[in-house]
């Protein structure tokens, strides 16, 4: 399980991760973590899921310019948004 789960992170923390856990996972598949800063897509991480259940994560290393509201969209293989996780990077 992730440590220090929060919705606000200091830019000095060094790394912010988005953990996602799936149970069950019927077959081997792939999801995406799309990281948005102020509605602008910054990066897309492709992550594998394997049966029977799987947890996976992606991270960013925020800099001063990244201070502000962020969002991670978790996307299924069909392109649907499964969940949106919202947080902020602050000073």
């Amino acid at each position, binding site marked *: 399980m992730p440590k*220090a789960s929060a919705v606000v992170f200091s830019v000095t923390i060094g790394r912010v991760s988005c953990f996602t856990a799936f149970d069950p996972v019927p077959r081997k598949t792939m999801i995406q973590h799309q990281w948005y800063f*102020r509605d602008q897509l910054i990066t897309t991480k492709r992550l594998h899921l394997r049966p029977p259940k799987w947890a996976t994560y992606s991270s960013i290393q925020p800099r001063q310019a990244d201070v502000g509201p962020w969002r991670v969209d978790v996307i299924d293989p069909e392109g649907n948004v499964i969940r949106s996780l919202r947080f902020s990077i602050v*000073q």
Partner: protein
Amino acid sequence: MDILSTIFKGFRWQDIADIALNSYILFRLYALFRGTNVFRIITGIVLLWILQQVAVWLGLIVTSWVLQGIIAVAALIIIVVFRNEIRSVLQAQNLRAILWGTPFRLASAPTEDIVDAVFSLARQSIGALMVLQVKESLDDVAQGGVTLGAQLSSELLASLFWTGAPLHDGAVIINGDRIERAGVILPLSQDNDMPQEYGTRHRAAIGLSEMTDALVIVVSEERGEVGVAVGGQIYEAPDRTVLSQLLMAHGIGAATSGQRETAETIRMGFSAVFSIVVVAMVWFTFSRGLESIVTVDAPIEYIKRNPDVEIIKASINTVSLSLGGSGPLLRNLHPDQVKVRLDLGGASAGVNAISVTSDNISLPPGVVLKHVQPDVVEVTIDQPVEKELPIQIDWGGTLPPDVMITGATVAPPTSRVKGGYQLLQQVQTLYTEKIILDRLDPSGTVIAKLVPYPASVRVAPGAPDRVEIQFTVAPREGGDNGADTAGDSPDR
């Protein structure tokens, strides 16, 4: 026909009024001042002005300057030197007569009465001096005397010169059929080359006729001879017939009132036509002869029937207009007088190609559009729509090192915004105002305003524009998890 259509293209009602008004002014000036020295000087000034225009056209810079100076000075001189003559013309007639009246001199001098009186006096060897005023005022040259204003008759006229009559020494001034003044002193001629028999009376007659257009009848006291002084010359009138002929030759009592009126009407009609022709020629010389073209960069104004329509982008903001018209009109063209208005009433969301035609361009009268560059504007239009957006807290400030915000909820979680369709395509989140961490309310609840972005997006009418945020603060757990940028693991 092409030449005519070119000349009359863009002919406005103001142009007709311009020509008519100036023609009328010219005509009235002629009617009021014709035959006077003022008119002759004005004619000279007009000739000088024409010369000056020719000098400008030929590029004779110094000549045109000199002529311009002379004209300016001459105009002043007219007013100063001829002030009495101008005043007499203007004062002698009321406003209606100045603006409209025809200056017919219907009351002609009764020549029979004058001739009777003259030869009656001549027979009795009574000296006499009669001034028959024509057009010019005699106020400045004939001095003194007594104003009579009496109806002319041969008896009255003769009686004024009888020896012993109080006014018999001076001249009588006759204007039309009235004796205006008697006992008047006339200026003496300075000419030394005169017959020896001419006395003071003859010298005065010649003197006045030299200075004015008046006709002066002089009766010699010694010899009983009759003479007529006109233009500085004395003509002998040995009998009634010769005197009558001399008077008629100078337009005094020459015709019946009806004939004079007809002749005068024809003359004035001709003058009116001449005035119109002259002014029209001058007008066309200025307004059409000096046709020129200027290029003006005009800003485009968009007329939006629907105030919610957003103009996202326009390919250009100004168009270059080539405008034609008279030089003076174009030189005085003010940027505010040129307007390019494009109506977006028929435009739809997306890119619209709108033609810039003369229908979209507003120009002052007399100025015509020659060319537009470019003639098509691409305008990207956005139609207003509403969109439901999730609300996200925009945390700011500095997070204390010993605490974490472990959770936060927003109520309501969404709100509606209104803005351009294309613009809202890019907008996925509605943010709150900055929630400053340095001064968080310990209650864990805060009310925050919604701040739509970009600025043209607004919270939809009726939709919540404030939210309640509930957050959870917890002590920070120590240590970094040391995870990579991306990773996965079986969750067992």
